[in-house]
């Protein structure tokens, strides 16, 4: 039996805007993936701990407060420290265009900003496997 792709949708930082994260989590679940959602106000450490415990293949980070440049790379770094850098990290939220090159250079594989159709995220996930 082929293992189902497992995805952790996570809300790092103090931001409470979870509409997008919850939508993506539910839509990916409907698309046949196994999805875990952390809830809001998670530290990067807690997210990485959950990711390793749950043995996920992907982490989707959602943030609308502007702290992405600090918090997204931190998740990637912590994964690497734990030897879990095979986990693919992507992100979404209110992310200015000008920040995207920095995030990609720091190991965030894709950024999906407001208005992205869910099929773009699914295509990305499929292209990684």
């Amino acid at each position, binding site marked *: 039996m082929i293992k189902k792709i497992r995805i952790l949708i996570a809300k790092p930082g*103090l931001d*409470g805007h979870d509409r997008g994260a919850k939508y993506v989590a539910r839509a990916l679940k409907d698309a046949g993936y196994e999805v875990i959602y952390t809830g809001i106000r998670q530290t990067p450490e807690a997210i990485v701990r959950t990711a390793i415990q749950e043995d996920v293949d992907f982490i989707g980070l959602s943030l609308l*407060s502007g702290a992405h440049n600090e918090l997204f790379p931190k998740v990637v770094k912590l994964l690497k420290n734990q030897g879990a850098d095979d986990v693919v990290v992507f992100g979404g939220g*209110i992310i200015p265009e000008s920040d995207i090159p920095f995030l990609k250079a720091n190991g965030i594989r894709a950024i999906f*900003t407001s208005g992205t159709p*869910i099929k773009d995220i699914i295509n990305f996930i499929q292209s990684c496997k």
Partner: protein
Amino acid sequence: MATDKRFLKKLRDWEATTLKSVTDRFPERATKFTTGSWIEAERVALPESSDFESYLEKSGMPGEYPFTRGIQPNMYRGRLWTMRQYAGFGTAEESNERYKYLLAQGQTGLSIAFDLPTQIGYDSDYPAAEGEVGKVGVAIDTLQDMEILFDNIPLDQVSTSMTINAPAAILLAMYVAVADKQGIARNKLNGTLQNDILKEYIARGTYIFPPEPSLKLTTDIFEYCSREVPRFNSISISGYHIREAGATAVQEIAFTLANGIEYVKAALQAGLQLDSFADRLSFFFNAHNDLLEEVAKFRAARRIWAKLMKQKFHAANPKAMMLRFHTQTAGSTLTAQQPDNNIVRVTIQTLAAVLGGTQSLHTNSRDEALNLPTADSVRIALRTQQIVAHESGVTQTVDPLGGSYYIENLTDKIEAEVWQYLDKIEALGGMIRAIEQGYVQKEIQNSAYHYQQEIETGKRIVVGVNKYTLPDSAPISSPPVNPQLSKIQIAKLSKIKQQRDNLRVTATLKELRQTVKERDKNLMPDILAAVKEYASLGEICNVLRKEFGEYHESVIL
């Protein structure tokens, strides 16, 4: 729908002849038309009755029960709404500059945005505050920041709205302390404290303590305000964030009014007299693109609240029955694609708020789906209000859409659906139980999912997103937040911690802890005493955390 049989017969005849002759040749665009809340839109709504008694019962005269047509008899013929742009970022110095700019541009009230650490009761040097200091609002650690924030802004000349909830008591204390220092009498202070914790559990997320002690803080503030700052709105019961989380217009009103009921009950239980606080309750709603449904929504909300206050809580003072509200245009409708289109959306939403009779309004900036707004974008947003106010003509008469068959029909339908929700929530044991069981969150999530699916499938068109798209929109360049900000703020905090009288700080915090333990005493005086000694927000919240415990969300998907 029409009760008079003559109307019904006329309608059927019309459908069989005049309408049919057209639809046989040109079918309608859909088999069913709905509003944004999926209420069926009548093709043509007819008057339910031309009966005078019924008009008085449902609409009444503006400024009279049930206030459907507005809370003032002459609405904007008397005074325009307060134009109040929510703003704040970076340090207190930077935000102070922005406020003075906005006041110079003709804005008539201030609305303070605090950063997330402040909203969750953490100081800027708290580890989990990393990356968040000064981002979505201004960072406030001690009274010193608040003094800088209002430097050269005399507090008796402005009305100030503060979006602060879990630590509302502390920020109110800081505001009062600044007024004391400016030599301004407390009873001259005008403004609004958001102070609405229930919607934080439902939708917004900046809770600290569990519901029960949180509601004690809420009612302490009610009592303190009625005694010390009587012109302050002691709460702004907010549907805005509930709607942003994906609720329909009906759910926005239902859940907000249900929260309102809970606050009234809590205050009565705490021994307050209804008439001492009920006229200082205010509300905060969202204005979406669905213009006519939004107008009907505001009218229905006024009618339902008036009925609740009169019939359920037996208010005697008409002011206690009036639903006064602030509006903000809908952030969730802004698109990152072709951002200038958002100016048009905000214009429609402004009209919705004004035709719905709002008391104050914030208009969003075109670039907020991309980044913090630029000064240019903020000015256009303010100008949008000014154009509607001075050029559109909709301010010339009261409740311009009242009596429209469609609007009255929709107002009734929204009201009926809201009562169903209120009954359901009461059956669940009230709003706190409904939130704890995840009922409210689940209802909102289902609506959000349904809405997004309609966009995905193209059933719902969003211009520039799933239709009329362009390959790439030119991004608006945003001002970067000062990267040194966090360091500057932390340095300021550690300096004040050295300069203040630390023995006094410890003593006032200890007194606060003692008062919390006594349970039935109002905490405001002790909080004010600690604030005046420059105890930090985080230090005061830590005392409360220790005594009250912390709330943890139950994740519902």
